[in-house]
């Protein structure tokens, strides 16, 4: 276990040697800026209209946290859906194409050292992404008064969503030698998780409310929404922990299976 930082450090350094990491970070900042401006523009438009209509009650209800920051977090976590597979696709596939898998598996490292090291590298990168997301609401604090608690818990949501996606990406990357395939598999799993509640709502689950309930629980979106609303509930935190745990255990099993195939 004590080699996790060693593996993670090498992985991170390699990410920042290639232009991919910089590309992803720049793209993410630009998209963040665009979404932020759009949400700010929409918000001020609302304020303007409500003032014209002299709807004092609605103006009172309108606030930065619920009507601006929340939507912004939601959009950014959708962007993560596209970017995180790009970061994680190389984690295990590159080891296979470089032949370094043989080095790792014949060294004293344990499989958990390798898997958790890679996940730590990816999650550190996600922290950078979340920091970029956090930058924009921070600007709001200079000019307005969004609720700090909600802003922080929503950001925690973005971070947890990112970590969950990273764990799924780790798993997909361990399955194949091809980066493209790893990207696609990650993306498909993420889409499935996103679409599961829609299926549950449509009644595909056969009306059995128990099944629909389970399907809805599986979706990342619902748990993220709770956090964005400012409700930090143990059950939502547990959801993210369980998802990350399951996918990392599956990754470990796949990496280990090389030895037993």
């Amino acid at each position: 276990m004590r080699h996790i930082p060693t593996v993670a450090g090498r992985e991170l350094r390699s990410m920042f040697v290639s232009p991919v990491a910089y590309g992803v970070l720049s793209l993410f900042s630009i998209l963040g800026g665009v979404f932020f401006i759009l949400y700010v523009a929409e918000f001020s438009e609302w304020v303007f209209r409500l003032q014209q209509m002299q709807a004092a009650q609605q103006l009172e209800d309108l606030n930065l946290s619920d009507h601006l920051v929340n939507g912004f977090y939601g959009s950014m976590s959708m962007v993560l859906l596209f970017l995180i597979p790009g970061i994680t696709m190389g984690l295990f596939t590159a080891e296979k194409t470089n032949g370094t898998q043989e080095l790792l598996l014949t060294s004293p490292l344990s499989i958990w050292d390798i898997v958790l090291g890679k996940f730590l590298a990816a999650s550190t990168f996600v922290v950078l992404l979340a920091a970029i997301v956090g930058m924009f609401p921070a600007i709001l604090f200079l000019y307005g008064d969004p609720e700090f608690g909600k802003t922080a818990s929503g950001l925690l949501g973005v971070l947890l969503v990112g970590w969950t996606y990273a764990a799924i990406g780790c798993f997909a990357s361990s399955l194949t030698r091809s980066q493209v395939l790893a990207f696609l598999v990650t993306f498909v799993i993420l889409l499935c998780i996103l679409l599961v509640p829609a299926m549950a709502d449509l009644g595909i689950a056969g009306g059995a409310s128990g099944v629909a309930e389970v399907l809805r629980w599986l979706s990342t979106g619902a748990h993220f929404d709770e956090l964005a609303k400012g409700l930090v509930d143990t059950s939502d935190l547990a959801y993210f922990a369980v998802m990350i745990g399951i996918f990392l255990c599956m990754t470990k099993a796949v990496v280990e299976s090389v030895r037993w195939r």
Partner: protein
Amino acid sequence: MIEARGLSKRYGDVVAVDDVSFSIGKGEVVGFLGPNGAGKTTTMRMLTGFLPPTEGTAVIAGHDIFEDAVAARRSVGYLPETPPLYPEMTCRSYLTYVAKIKEVPRAARRGAVDQAIERCGLGDVYRRVISTLSKGFRQRVGIAQAILGDPPVLILDEPTVGLDPLQIREIRSLIAGFAAPGKGETQQTVVLSTHILAEVEAICRRVILISGGRKQIDAPITELTSGGRSLEEIFTQETLRDASVDQDLEGEA
């Protein structure tokens, strides 16, 4: 140093390695000989702990590969067929990383990396990024990686494949140096695989010939060639005989 006991590896119905046993003592340089696809790489992968044998076991420097897997892996320096390199790293940072994961103590790490660089003749290129190195240098980085931490056993899978004659000569003298070290260097047991006969004659004192997954010959080179036959004749004879046996079997079926 290396004790293989009835190593077998099967993939479904395909038998890659069939009941191979041998024992290699300290400081020996043994050549693993055999045609392509004979099971050399598979045998080596079993010794290094990369693949578990279907049957049998091996003991490396006193550690069983099943019961004491981590200690057995720690005792082996392994150069796979393709050197396991990260192309985006510099030579030195790569070797430092390998030293870390091989658990070379922090205080000794720098010295160990320096020594590996020096022994493998990487003094002029250690600052360079691996992807810019020539094939010969990459092979040397691969060997440097294997000798880091002074493992008592070195397993080298086709260390000279794809190199030019000059590079081959350099790598050979490097390998010969591992079993007959200078002052302050550990004596190592070396197993290397190749299908180049001249290579075996140049550096090994003993030959293990594997063909069709089975051990055919295990003898010192002097003993094999004492009858006036060259290694090439013996090699051809053994591998052809095996092939003809296979053909006979197919004919009967």
